[in-house]
């Protein structure tokens, strides 16, 4: 059976920065990935969207890097770069030709250590406007774009750190101040709250010396305050919203094993049996046989705290939302009643193994996977263990998750309905 193993080494600098080096000289490129253990779950009330707004500010320069300098320096070196924010973490990453490793380390270390003096009200105001336009473009002006934030608002009790979306709400973005920026930086952007992954064409010993050179003198900070992510049982909540769409879409969400949970892989395989491939259960029944859905998709969100498992289906024209939801639940009940079959698992294992190998091909994605494993699981070797863990999932494991997770009374349901036509 084809499998792979990516050897890496792991170090901790005196200031607490975790460093993971994964040498691979196949292509003369190197990925530098810096992940901070802070995301939207760390935001305080009235400041939703702040972690993501802050991520934008980190591209606005630092003491030795001019505004937009990150983009110019990296693109001028032939590299690519970006940053993303999610519930649990924020990451910054670039892939550059292997002779430009120092440049990437210089840029990332300058904003980790020397961001604060460079931030101004004008930069904050500009990026606040950009982020508000990101919210308009990617959520408000997009069909079904507000569905996920409606799901989590219904699935979690008030005050729960996963109850609001990473993009945040307009009034909270408006409320963000420079003082918030400085507090957030001081609290969370410390080397002891981050993991640096370097993956690609380099010599490990030399690379570690360069990392020490650029990051070694950045002082450790206080340990950031921990966030309590309470386990929640199913909410049973439902909400209907309207949108400028022509057909209804149904979102069903169950609380599921987190990325850290021993049952995470079984839950992931469960979603694969539901909608991955045309012979999968929900796709076959709803799209092919009954022809009531145009699209179906089930997936898990690999969160650090309580996980989320979604099943989403878009109605065909003329199909009512309640009819679609009932059909989705029938498939789910069918899986709970009949149990997973070994032959379904054969395909799921092949698909998962192939998809993992494909994803881990590029040094950028591999660095991303190592960083997630380090920051969310405290164990980068998960990247290599994942193959065996998915391989070991049995029908009984899937059945156990189906019984415990897919509890119909606990589901959160959000239905997006077409707006009444205004002519």
């Amino acid at each position, binding site marked *: 059976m084809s499998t792979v193993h990516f050897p890496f080494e792991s170090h901790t600098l005196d200031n607490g920065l975790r460093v993971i080096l994964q040498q691979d000289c196949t292509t003369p490129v190197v990925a530098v990935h810096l992940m901070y253990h802070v995301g939207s779950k760390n935001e305080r009330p009235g400041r939703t969207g702040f972690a993501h707004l802050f991520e934008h500010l980190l591209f606005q320069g630092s003491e030795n890097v001019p505004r937009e300098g990150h983009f110019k320096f990296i693109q001028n070196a032939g*590299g690519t770069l970006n940053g993303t924010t999610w519930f649990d973490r924020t990451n910054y990453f670039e892939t550059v030709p292997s002779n430009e490793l120092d440049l990437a380390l210089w840029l990332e270390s300058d904003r980790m250590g020397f961001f604060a003096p460079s931030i101004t009200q004008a930069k904050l105001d500009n990026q606040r406007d950009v982020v508000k336009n990101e919210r308009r473009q990617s959520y408000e002006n997009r069909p079904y774009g507000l569905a996920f934030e409606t799901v989590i608002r219904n699935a979690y009790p008030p005050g729960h750190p996963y109850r609001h979306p990473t993009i945040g709400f307009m009034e909270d973005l408006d409320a963000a101040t420079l003082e918030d920026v400085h507090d957030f930086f001081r609290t969370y952007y410390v080397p002891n709250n981050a993991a640096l992954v370097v993956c690609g064409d380099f010599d490990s010993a030399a690379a570690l010396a360069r990392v020490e050179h650029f990051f070694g003198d950045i002082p450790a900070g206080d340990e950031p305050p921990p966030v309590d992510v309470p386990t929640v049982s199913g909410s049973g909540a439902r909400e209907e919203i309207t949108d400028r769409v022509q057909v209804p879409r149904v979102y069903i969400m169950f609380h599921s094993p987190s990325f850290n949970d021993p049952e995470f892989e079984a839950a992931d395989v469960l979603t694969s049996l539901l909608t991955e491939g045309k012979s999968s259960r929900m796709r076959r029944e709803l799209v092919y046989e009954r022809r009531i859905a145009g699209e179906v998709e089930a997936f898990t969100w690999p969160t650090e705290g309580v996980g989320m498992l979604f099943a989403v289906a878009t109605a065909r024209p003329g199909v009512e939302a309640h009819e679609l939801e009932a059909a989705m639940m029938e498939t789910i009940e069918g899986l709970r009643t009949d149990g997973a079959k070994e032959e379904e698992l054969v395909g799921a294992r092949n698909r*998962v193994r*192939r998809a993992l190998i494909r994803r881990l091909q590029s040094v950028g994605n591999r660095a991303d996977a190592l960083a997630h494993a380090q920051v969310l699981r405290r164990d980068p070797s998960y990247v290599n263990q994942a193959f065996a863990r998915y391989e070991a999932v049995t029908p009984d494991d899937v059945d156990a998750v189906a019984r415990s997770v897919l509890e119909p009374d606990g589901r959160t349901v959000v239905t997006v309905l077409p707006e009444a036509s205004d002519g």
Partner: protein
Amino acid sequence: MSQVLDRSTPPEPGTRPALKLPHSGRYRLSSGLDVLILPRPALPEVSLRLITEAGAALEPERECGVAELTGRLLTEGAAGKDAMQMAGWLDRLGAAFTVSASYDVTMVSMHSLSDTLSGALDYLAATTREPSFTASETERVRQERLDEIERDRDEPSIVATRKLVTAIYGDHPYGRPSDGTYESVSSLDAESVRRFHHRRYTSAGAALIACGDVDAERLVAELEGRFGDWTPGTDRGSLPEAPSHPLRPGSPLIIDRPRSAQSEIRIGTIGAPFQTEDLYAATMGNAILGGLFSSRINMNLREDKGWTYGARSAFHFRRGAGPFVAQTAVETPVTADAVAEMLAEIRGMVTNPPSEEEMSLARNALTLSLPRQFETTSQVTGKLARQVIFGLPEDYWERYPERINAVSREHVVAVMERYLAPERLVFLVVGDAESVEPGLRAIGPTEVAAG
């Protein structure tokens, strides 16, 4: 104790790694099918692409969308198996299978573990050579396509691009959506699909590309067994010449979408075919105008004004003269201002020619990025596919840096002036017409259409 690190200047780069791009072996099967193989045993996986001369630009106008529908139907019954048997076969293999019908070609892409490659090749041969195209499955998938076309109307960004290309190209194939219109797909049936497949899925102009954990000779033998007797067609079709001037330049076209949170803006025109001496200068000019994050349009609209999450532009090089499109989405009140700023930036490429710093950034971004564009097997087969589609020489990518580096500022200015002359520009906005129309009248007489 070490000295305090001087961080004030960026570190000097190390020695630049030599550009070593992989070369594929070339083979030809008995049927005339060209095969390009690049063994790369680093990981146990293989990327495959089969390219056929089944591009959407070759469709008869009344059958617009038949290339896409044909591609969708390959998996829905073949080689004596029905749709669900085919689905079960693929899902057990665990391989990925996608078909995309672009204007130029139809490309079937597969990704497989090396230990399931033989099964993947069987599946590839069955779908492309022996699809059943039964009346009932054709009807089902045709209906799915119609549903999708309807759902696309909900996406302002899709609506904007579709309406733009029609306003540029009119009746030319590039003015039609490559996957068809509601009307044209409504008229398709199993017979039209069968006819298209028979004519276009042949070895004429086709190529099979593989990169990954393979032994080239063994793979050629496996392919000979599956494609060695493929229909050796001769008809490669011919593309109607693109118009020289866009259909309706000047007057902004507004697609009304009341109460939109943002306006989707498009400024476009007829660009150039891939095979043009202007390719490199146009690529450089676009990088500076709107191709890179640090481009003029994005710096102005996003980083200076804060009006948008992003603004960009591109020449869509095809076998024929594909479009140039500059695009953004902005908050409604600044719509007309944003159009004016984009127009000013397009003109600025002539009135305020690129600085040496801009030229250097564009050159470096385009050429020093080559190694990472060949990192994964799918990237490699994608690059080889471009070589096949555009008939590029083996050393195309090796010579790419010298071609880009040879582009002068004067050539960039001349190309931007010629292609992006103001009288050639088509303006389109999808947004709240009542709010945006008054401001847009400054560009020219406006026309409002329903969404």
